[in-house]
């Protein structure tokens, strides 16, 4: 119970005066004036003390309000943990991604394929902004055998339509690669993103959103990567001598914000071009089960240009979503006196349906009701289907062993390398979003391989069940 100062003043004064009156009534008149003076002085002294306490409290409150305005804001929520300056110009966010997978292979003869539990991604991530427009991002991955810096870049947002980004980051090519690893619908990306399009590279790009954010563009120059590779991975980099790899991408959402059925349509195209000579061609392809099945002969070298072109699109409408992209990688190669231009291509079409009715989207799904048995919430559930394929130029397999561009076919088993010209995969997925941050995924994927050689049997089918537990914030 608190008293106002005025109430305290009155109470004390009344008490003192009352006690003085009682004393007075019993004392001789000769002491009246001196006692009154003493009482008056006491009241005044107490009055001042109360006023001082009141004022100190007032000053402390004013200071607390001022300090609060200058104090940084600390947040901890489903979007991560952050600290932001009072003027909002500077911020630091701690985010993270943990994916724990199980892979079960069925019906395979390959003794080297083991069912396994593994950490697929363990990525603490630091993001932040300095002086309102300079964003930085440092994303490390401790899942591989040695830690990798996946992303490390600075992006200067001079204007929404003109931004400059430099460092290591995703090369703007594949639509599915650009999609965050937190939001992919299948546990592993398709041949387009995983085998042919470059992953991450070191370079810089100019990019931005124009036309009311309906068109996004990116033009960049990068160190250069062979198909499906990432700067800093165990695979070799492309070093292009004096040339680097140029990448360009435009992606449009022409009906964005219109509120009609085409609101969720996005279409785009990307392109890369590099020039190099006499580098061992490092393109190598792997199955959805992450098993390599093709590589070039070590004597096959680059002999000019390497270009990629990738038209891409997605469409989302309510709980329904579909994503499709195609990519062709054309490489000038030579081996000895023989040279050729090899065109390898891949494409995918993937659709998903959120059966609990939440809106589907490129950036993932947020359940309407988090999983909570006590409240009867079941999170969000999604089913997805995908077909994707990769086809290697048949010219890669032509010729005798001494001049063939492809690596030597391993025919000692029915799961050998460098025998496959075409891989076709079907996948079905069930995803359970417990809340914004936690997800269970199960993906069954079956791949059949077509041999490039008439006298070599097809590689055995790959049948794999992936399950994943993911926490991301």
């Amino acid at each position, binding site marked *: 119970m608190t008293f106002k100062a005025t109430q305290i003043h009155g109470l004390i004064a009344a008490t003192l005066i009352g006690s003085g009156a009682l004393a007075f009534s019993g004392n001789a008149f000769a002491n009246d004036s001196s006692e009154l003076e003493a009482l008056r002085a006491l009241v005044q002294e107490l009055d*001042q003390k109360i*006023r*001082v306490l*009141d*004022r*100190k409290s*007032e*000053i402390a409150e004013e*200071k607390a309000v001022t300090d609060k305005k200058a104090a940084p804001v600390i947040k901890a929520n489903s979007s991560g943990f952050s600290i932001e300056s009072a*003027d909002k110009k500077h911020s630091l966010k701690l985010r993270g991604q943990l994916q724990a997978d199980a892979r079960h292979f069925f019906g395979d003869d390959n003794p080297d394929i083991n069912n396994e539990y593994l950490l697929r991604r363990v990525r603490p991530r630091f993001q932040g902004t300095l002086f309102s427009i300079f964003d930085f991002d440092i994303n490390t991955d401790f899942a591989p055998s040695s830690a990798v810096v996946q992303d490390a870049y600075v992006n200067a947002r001079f204007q929404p339509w003109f931004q400059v980004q430099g460092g290591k980051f995703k090369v703007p090519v594949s639509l599915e690669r650009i999609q965050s690893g937190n939001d992919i619908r299948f546990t592993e990306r398709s041949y387009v993103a995983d085998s042919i399009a470059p992953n991450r590279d070191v370079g810089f790009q100019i990019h931005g959103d124009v036309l009311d954010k309906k068109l996004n563009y990116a033009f960049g120059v990068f160190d250069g990567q062979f198909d499906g590779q990432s700067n800093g991975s165990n695979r070799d980099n492309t070093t292009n001598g004096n040339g680097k790899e140029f990448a360009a991408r435009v992606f449009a959402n022409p009906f964005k914000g219109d509120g009609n059925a085409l609101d969720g349509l996005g279409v785009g195209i990307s392109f890369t071009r590099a020039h190099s000579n006499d580098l061992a061609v490092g393109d190598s392809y792997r199955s959805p089960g992450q098993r390599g099945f093709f590589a070039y002969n070590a004597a096959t070298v680059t002999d000019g240009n390497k270009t990629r072109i990738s038209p891409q699109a997605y469409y989302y409408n309510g709980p329904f979503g579909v994503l499709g992209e195609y990519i062709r990688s054309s490489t000038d190669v030579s081996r000895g006196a023989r040279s050729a231009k090899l065109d390898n291509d891949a494409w995918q079409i993937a659709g998903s349906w959120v059966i609990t009715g939440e809106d589907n989207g490129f950036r993932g799904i947020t359940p309407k009701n988090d999983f909570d048995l006590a409240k009867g919430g079941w999170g969000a559930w999604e089913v997805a289907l995908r077909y994707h394929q990769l086809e290697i130029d048949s010219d890669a397999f032509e010729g005798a062993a001494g001049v063939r561009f492809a690596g030597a076919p391993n025919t000692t088993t029915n799961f050998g390398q460098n025998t496959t010209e075409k891989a076709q995969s079907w996948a079905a997925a069930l995803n359970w979003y417990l809340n914004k941050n936690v997800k269970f995924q199960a993906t069954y994927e079956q791949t059949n391989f077509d041999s490039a050689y008439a006298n070599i049997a097809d590689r055995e089918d790959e049948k794999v069940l992936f399950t994943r537990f993911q926490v991301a914030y």
Partner: protein
Amino acid sequence: MKLSLSKLLIAGAFALAVPLSAAAKDITLLNVSYDPTRELYTEFNKAFAAHWKAKTGDNVTIKQSHGGAGKQARAVIDGLQADVVTLALAYDIDAIHEKAKLIPKDWQARLPNNSAPYTSTIVLLVRKGNPKQIKDWDDLAKPGVSVITPNPKTSGGARWNYLAAWGYELKRNGGDQKKAQEFVKKIYANVPVLDSGARGSTTTFVERGIGDVFISWENEAFLALKELGPDKFEIVVPSVSILAEPPVTLVDKVADKRKTRAVAQAYLEYLYSDQGQEIAGKHYYRPTNPKYVEKYAKQFPKVNLFKIDDVFGGWQKAQKDHFSDGGTFDQIYTKK
């Protein structure tokens, strides 16, 4: 008179061009000032806006920020986008150069009178009837006298107050610094509340009724008399006090970035104009223009004033000796 077509066309083009080129601009300035100058700049800003409008046709709005001078200087150093600062003492503006390089080192030489368009001093404000019989600085050190003054760590006025008391004792005892420190220590032992700025201390003394004597900016003392009536308070003029020269300056880097240099410079120069000096005098700041010194001579009591340069060796030395960490204020004052 016949008008040729070409002349008509030229006249027409000119008639269009003139209003287009003469469209009035809207300009805002931020004046970061010390605590007690609110009323002064409310009137001055109105006058300058009218003057600038008449002179250029442009509309200028001046936003004010007030607080303890030390805190205000730190805010500008930390990024507050002040076009001009009008602070209580030169040391705080020097800090804006040293720590943030927002102004040149020779900022003080750019405007007349060491960039101080008005001066002031420190007086003692007491309750009507002067119940504690305060006559001079030494009465503030007596037991039972409650003294109100702001915190010298944050307030420019408080630093002037502190040095005024110290200077008084030095003159009284023949220059003994130790005795001066003891004297000021006794005064601060009588201080029940330390506000962060001079206006806060005015609130404490005048509105909250705390204390027997308020060591006050002269203009604050006159304002208290004017606003609350001479039947509530009295001004006691001490035998000696300090000449306070609150300086002003353009914040070059901010003004250049915001493209307000010309109007910000004119704003400061207007403080020295007849109108500016009149407004200063009206708000109980001592004008520096001799015409207005004479006009307002009767308004201000005659005080024996000493300069900080003469007694303390200037602001840099005074700050280091008295108000920086470990200085005499830290030695004498224990937080209550």
